[in-house]
C-alpha cells in the first residue's frame, strides 16, 4: 500500500514523474529490503559498518546478519527484530528510491512530512501507513456513517488484495446520489437491511479482476468475464452476510447482475470508493437502506 499511497502523492504534487513511479513499482516487484538498509534506518549500525559487512559478505559465504553478529555490530535479538521488519513496505520504498536515485533520504523525510501535514494524519496513523497491511490502512482510510458499509468496503479491499493483486491504492469513500459508468457488475442483498455492492469502471479494470479471480486469460468483457466479477462480488457479500448473521440481521443474497452503459440511482445515499488495482481505476459502490435502481 505504501508505494501507491506515497507514490501517487508524489506524482500528484509533481515531485516525481509517472515513469519514476513505475520504476519504483518495478523495483518493489523484484527486490526485498536488505538487512543493512534496515540496520541503518533503525540506527543499529553505521553506514561504515554496513559497508564493511557487505564487503566481507562478498568474500565469505555467510549471511549479512551472521557476519554483523560475529563482528559485534548487532546483538542476536536485534537481528531477529530487523528480520521481522524486512517486510515493511516503507523501508523497501526508501531503499528503492535510493537505489534508483529518484530521491535521497532527506528528501524522502521532507516529503513525508508535507504529505502528513496535507492529510492531517497523526503520527500513529503515519506509522500504520508506513508499516501496515491493507487491512491496517483500510481501517484508517475507509470511514462512512454506516459501520456495515465501512465493513463491506474493507472486505472488498482485503479480498482484492487476496485474490486480485497486492498493488492496491484506494481513497476514502464519498457519498453520491447517482453514478454512471461504461461497465457495471453488482449484487443486492435484501432483508432486515438492504445492501448493494458493485464494481464499475472501464473494460480493462473489470477484465483484470475477472482474469485474476478466475485464473485464466479473458480477451473480452463478455458474459463469461462479467460472471467472474459477479462471483467475486458474491463471495465478498457472502462474507458480510455471515457477519450480519452473527448480529441476527437476516439478509438474502440475490443473483448478481451486470450491465453496460448504466446509471445507478440510490434513493438513500450510496458511497463510492475509488480503488486502483495495478493503477487501473475501479469504482466500488456500496449502499444500504433503500434498494437501488439500475437504468
Amino acid at each position, binding site marked *: 500500500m505504501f508505494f501507491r499511497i506515497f507514490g501517487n502523492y508524489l506524482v500528484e504534487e509533481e515531485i516525481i514523474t509517472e515513469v519514476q513511479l513505475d520504476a519504483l513499482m518495478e523495483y518493489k516487484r523484484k527486490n526485498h529490503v536488505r538487512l543493512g538498509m534496515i540496520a541503518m534506518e533503525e540506527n543499529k549500525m553505521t553506514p561504515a559498518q554496513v559497508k564493511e559487512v557487505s564487503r566481507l559478505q562478498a568474500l565469505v559465504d555467510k549471511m549479512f546478519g551472521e557476519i554483523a553478529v560475529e563482528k559485534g555490530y548487532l546483538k542476536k535479538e536485534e537481528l531477529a527484530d530487523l528480520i521481522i521488519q524486512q517486510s515493511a513496505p516503507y523501508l523497501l520504498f526508501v531503499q528503492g528510491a535510493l537505489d534508483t536515485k529518484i530521491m535521497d533520504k532527506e528528501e524522502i523525510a521532507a516529503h513525508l512530512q508535507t504529505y502528513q501535514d496535507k492529510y492531517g494524519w497523526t503520527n500513529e496513523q503515519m506509522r500504520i501507513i508506513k508499516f501496515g497491511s491493507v487491512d491496517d490502512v483500510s481501517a484508517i482510510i475507509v470511514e462512512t456513517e454506516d459501520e456495515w458499509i465501512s465493513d463491506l468496503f474493507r472486505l472488498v479491499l482485503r479480498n482484492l488484495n*487476496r485474490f486480485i493483486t497486492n498493488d492496491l491504492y484506494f481513497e476514502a469513500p464519498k457519498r453520491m446520489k447517482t453514478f454512471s459508468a461504461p461497465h457495471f457488475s453488482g449484487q443486492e442483498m435484501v432483508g432486515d437491511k438492504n445492501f448493494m455492492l458493485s464494481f464499475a469502471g472501464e473494460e480493462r479494470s473489470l477484465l483484470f479482476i475477472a482474469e485474476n479471480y478466475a485464473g485464466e486469460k479473458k480477451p473480452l468483457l463478455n458474459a*463469461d468475464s462479467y460472471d467472474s466479477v459477479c*462471483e467475486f462480488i*458474491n463471495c465478498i457479500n*457472502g462474507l458480510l*452476510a*455471515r457477519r450480519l*448473521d452473527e448480529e441476527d440481521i*437476516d439478509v438474502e443474497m440475490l443473483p448478481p447482475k451486470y450491465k453496460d452503459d448504466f446509471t445507478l440511482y440510490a434513493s438513500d445515499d450510496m458511497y463510492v470508493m475509488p480503488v486502483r488495482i495495478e493503477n487501473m481505476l475501479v469504482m466500488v459502490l456500496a449502499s444500504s437502506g433503500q434498494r437501488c435502481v439500475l437504468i
Partner: protein
Amino acid sequence: MAKFLIVDDSTTSRKMLREIIEHELGHIVIGEASDGAKGVKMYDALHPDVVTMDITMPVMDGIEALKEIKELNPEAKVIMITAAGQAKMITKAVDLGADEFIAKPYEHSSIVEILKKLAL
C-alpha cells in the same frame, strides 16, 4: 472414480470446481446445471455420486433443490458450496440432509480435502 454433478449459476465457479474435481482428484463431472431446477432434473436423469450445490441461484435456489433431490433419493450425497454461509441457512441445509458445507471464497486445499473425503 466418482461421478459429480455441479449446480451453480456462475460459469466461473463451475469451471473452478470442475478443474479441482477432474484434475486434482481424478473424478469426473458428468453434468453442470446453472440453477436449482435444472440441477434436480439432471440429478434424476444422470444419478451422480456427489452433487455440489450453490445456494444463491435464480429460478430455484440451492436449498429448495437440495430438498427435492433428497426427496428423489434420501441417500444422495450433496455438498453445499456457497458464499451465503449464514447460520440459519446452514441449519436448514443440514436439517434437509446436506452432507458437507463449504464457504466461498474457499481455500483450494480445504475444498480438495473435503471433496476427497466425500467422494471415496
